[in-house]
């Protein structure tokens, strides 16, 4: 059986191929939510509260309803049938205020949705929104988590006796004894400030109710179309199979679209009421004010150690600024911080507490790293402080406290089991890259000349590949379907829903190797609940480590079935896939993938006990998370006169297990580092005492621009994960987790000769300049 099919012998996994999704993105041919046009489509604009805390005394929609082009106005009274915005987290005794899609009697933060105006044109919808008269009676707000827990603080939710939404405690080992016996205990208050995720595409929704079918399609810029379908069906009180969610091209998420928002249900409701497609596109100002924020921690830490640098115990209290409500995962994020706060260190005594507090601010939730940047930041700051206190080298102190490669799987102080690791490896590689010993001499010389020159090390670990279902609010598995079509090309359906990560390429690479087809013979479909079997989504560095693993298992099934057909067609039980052909090892005869596909669907003859077709679906449940790690080093110089920071070098050595596509991994690392650099130096969601968001536009909220970013020197070590068959660990959040402590440790090191021992983020010139002035005074 000769074949004319191309022979794909080159292994695609591990190869830096360019992305297959790019041509549409580069030519203006992609379809984001706002690019959708439908016949008769209406446009919506949402009326939002200008106050952080106020009673609503009345809403007058008369003028708005009479305005040109306005077809309808809905207020909270009209939308009472829509269920509350869901939270996926429950803790004993946790206060969960009812979170309606439109406020009725009170507003709780600036931007709180009060009414929706629908018009024939988006300009007219905005005009109409301006005519909605809301009579507010402002009350005292509290926008600072420390002030919110103080006695006598204004109550965010007057029905509760205080602003504490929940507390959580976890302890391991003999904490008091360990601290009493410590040679040194360092203490510090550390802030991980509120951040605005700022995906370049804001959120947007098009809802399209088909009355004849009693069916609704919601096109929404989301990371979790499948979970959104289940939850939105519940909110709207409609059967799940009549609701289709489509995540079309999604212009960045970073966790901010790992959520279910009131607007998604509201637009579905409005479309159903009006029996027309309706579009709502979030403005940038709305995105800053009402899409979830990230971080928002004030942490108090104590780290105990012996004179030789052995870390013995940790105490942490996390004050987590939840905002006014629970969004999907709000209360989970500080728990992730708590779990990861032991970092990469081999100590087993910890006392950890969380106080989750309501404020009159937009809710916080998952933002790239989601709890882990906060954890890494504080432990890496504390380890540096212990080094400084004991006069030990911060690199060697870290190495001294790492578990050894033979200690894995390694159980941490907070009960996690790290899958595999060799923590010294990336650190040594990073130290070699910066020529650490020479660098220290350079620093000594610089200091002697009066320059503020700093070296900052961060060794981080992260909990990724989320995750085993018992440890997750929803399922933690992922799904994949592999369909070898009758012509031999392949369609892959993944429950992951990428939004820039490039799974249309990496999943095609995995498929190509498994089935002996070309990468261009594989189509990877995602993000449409009417096309793809149920899935979980893309977040928590899980798409490849869980979704890719599900794909791998589905591929094995299809491959095994192809083998049965090859055996039949070659009349042999000794066949192997070589390139794109199955070969009989005895006769050398071959049969191509294309011929096998034809035989499987033609079904003129079938192997014993084998059904026609070449399709497999796998739902794969991981047994553990995966734990990537790495070492970042930042070399900085601070300008004494202006307080500005110059990043002289930035070196990142990341270990994310096996790599499917090095080009895409580099992109993930770069982007993550720069987001953390934003937190370290520039970004801060600032609320004033009245709960007004002062950084509510890109004019005031400073995400990094190209000239603010140093050249990043990136490399890898490779320690495969034993948890999944691909050996991958996840890389989407590595940079965001590793970077901020490296920069802050570096700047703190630069300022050390002035007696400064800690700097909080963002390290703006103003803050640094002020600290220098105070230190010199």
């Amino acid at each position, binding site marked *: 059986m000769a074949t004319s099919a191309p022979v794909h012998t080159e292994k695609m996994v591990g190869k830096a191929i360019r992305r297959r999704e790019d041509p549409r993105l580069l030519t203006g041919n992609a379809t984001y939510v706002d690019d959708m046009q439908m016949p008769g489509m209406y446009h919506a604009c949402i009326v939002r509260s200008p106050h952080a805390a106020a009673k609503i005394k009345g809403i007058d929609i008369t003028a708005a309803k009479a305005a040109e082009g306005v077809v309808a106005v809905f207020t909270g009274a009209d939308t009472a049938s829509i269920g509350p915005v869901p939270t996926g987290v429950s803790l004993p005794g946790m206060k969960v205020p009812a979170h309606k899609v439109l406020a009725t009697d009170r507003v709780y933060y600036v931007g709180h949705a009060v009414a929706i105006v629908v018009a024939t044109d988006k300009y007219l919808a905005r005009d109409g929104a301006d005519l909605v008269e809301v009579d507010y009676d402002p009350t005292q707000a509290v926008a600072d988590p420390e002030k919110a827990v103080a006695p006598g603080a204004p109550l965010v939710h007057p029905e509760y006796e205080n602003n504490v939404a929940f507390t959580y405690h976890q302890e391991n080992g003999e904490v008091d004894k360990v601290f009493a016996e410590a040679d040194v205990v360092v203490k510090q208050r550390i802030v991980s400030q509120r951040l605005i995720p700022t995906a370049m595409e804001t959120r947007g929704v098009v809802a399209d109710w088909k009355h004849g079918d009693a069916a609704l399609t919601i096109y929404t810029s989301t990371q979790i179309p499948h979970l959104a379908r289940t939850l939105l069906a519940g909110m709207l009180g409609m059967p799940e199979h009549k609701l289709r969610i489509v995540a079309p091209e999604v212009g960045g998420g*970073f966790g901010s679209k790992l959520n279910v928002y009131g607007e998604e249900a509201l637009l579905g409701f409005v479309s159903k009421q009006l029996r027309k497609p309706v579009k709502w596109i979030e403005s940038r100002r709305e995105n800053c004010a009402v899409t979830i924020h990230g971080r928002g921690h004030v942490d108090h830490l104590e780290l105990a150690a012996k004179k030789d640098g052995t870390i013995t115990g940790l105490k942490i209290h996390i004050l987590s600024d939840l905002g006014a409500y629970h969004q999907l995962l709000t209360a989970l994020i500080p728990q992730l911080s708590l779990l990861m706060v032991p970092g990469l260190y081999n100590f087993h005594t910890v006392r950890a507490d969380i106080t989750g507090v309501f404020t009159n601010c937009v809710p916080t939730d998952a933002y790239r790293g989601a709890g882990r940047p906060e954890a890494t930041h504080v432990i890496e700051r504390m380890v540096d402080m212990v080094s400084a206190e004991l006069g030990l080298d911060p690199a060697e102190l870290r190495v001294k406290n790492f578990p050894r490669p033979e200690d894995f799987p390694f159980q941490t102080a907070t009960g996690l089991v790290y899958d595999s690791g060799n923590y010294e490896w990336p650190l040594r590689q990073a130290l070699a890259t910066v020529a650490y010993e020479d660098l220290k001499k350079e620093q000594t010389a610089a200091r002697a000349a009066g320059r503020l020159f700093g070296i900052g090390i961060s060794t981080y670990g992260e909990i990724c590949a989320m995750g085993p279902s018992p440890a997750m609010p929803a399922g933690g598995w992922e799904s994949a379907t592999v369909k070898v079509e009758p012509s031999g090309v392949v369609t892959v359906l993944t429950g992951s829903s990428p939004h820039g990560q490039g799974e249309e390429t990496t999943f095609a690479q995995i498929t190509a190797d498994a089935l002996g087809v070309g990468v261009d013979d594989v189509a990877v479909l995602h993000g449409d609940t009417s096309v793809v079997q149920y899935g979980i989504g893309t977040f928590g560095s899980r798409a490849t480590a869980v979704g890719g693993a599900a794909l791998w298992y589905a591929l094995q099934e299809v491959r095994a079935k192809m083998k049965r057909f090859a055996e039949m067609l070659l009349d042999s039980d000794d066949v192997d896939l070589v390139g794109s052909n199955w070969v009989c090892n005895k006769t050398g005869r071959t049969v191509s993938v294309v011929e096998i596909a034809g035989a499987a669907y033609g079904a003129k003859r079938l192997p014993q006990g084998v059904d026609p077709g070449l399709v497999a679906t796998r739902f794969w449940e991981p047994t553990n998370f995966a734990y990537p790690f790495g070492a970042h080093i930042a070399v900085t110089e601070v300008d004494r006169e202006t307080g500005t920071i110059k990043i002289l070098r930035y070196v990142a050595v990341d270990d994310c297990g096996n790599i499917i596509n090095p080009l895409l991994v580099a*992109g993930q690392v770069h982007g993550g580092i720069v987001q953390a650099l934003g937190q370290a130096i520039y970004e801060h969601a600032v609320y004033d005492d009245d709960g007004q968001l002062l950084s509510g536009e890109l004019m005031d909220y400073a995400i990094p621009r190209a000239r603010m970013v140093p050249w990043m020197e990136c490399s890898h070590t490779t320690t495969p994960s034993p948890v999944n068959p691909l050996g991958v660990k996840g890389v989407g959040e590595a940079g965001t987790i590793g970077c901020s402590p490296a920069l802050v440790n570096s700047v703190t090191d630069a300022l050390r000769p002035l007696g400064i021992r800690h700097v909080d983020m963002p390290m703006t010139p103003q803050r640094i300049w002020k600290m220098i002035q105070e230190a010199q005074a």
Partner: protein
Amino acid sequence: MKRTITVTVNGQRHSADVEPRLLLVHLLRDQLGLTGTHIGCETSLCGACTVELDGRTVKSCAMFAVQADGSDILTIEGLAVDGKMHPMQEAFWNEHGLQCGFCTPGMVMSCRQLLKDIPDPTDHEIREAIDGNLCRCTGYQHIVNAVKAAAAAGAR
């Protein structure tokens, strides 16, 4: 009151009746159906809406359609010739200069303008040139690589 304007976009002449307050970006996207030009901030800070107008890049969210009357506009859809990408697009593809793709059309337009002004820019000049274009995904490093690759390939 609507006004009739005429614009040439990607070589094609269009007449349109527009409200004086209509932004150029909405004319392009909603009336002419050229949705490759994106809106990221509506305040001219992010650059996703960058197009070329009479040979120079402008932010189409910060300009009224009536101001573009009589002008010649090039958008991301008009860069490829006979189905072949512009070398800058090709370079972004090769160097992985994009992830979610939302900033990409504006970024490509700005980078193309740079090479028209400075055919062989330094890293610093590249970073300065895209100061008005925000990208939240890439960390800019691969974009810098893409511009250098395009310059080396003689792109203008």
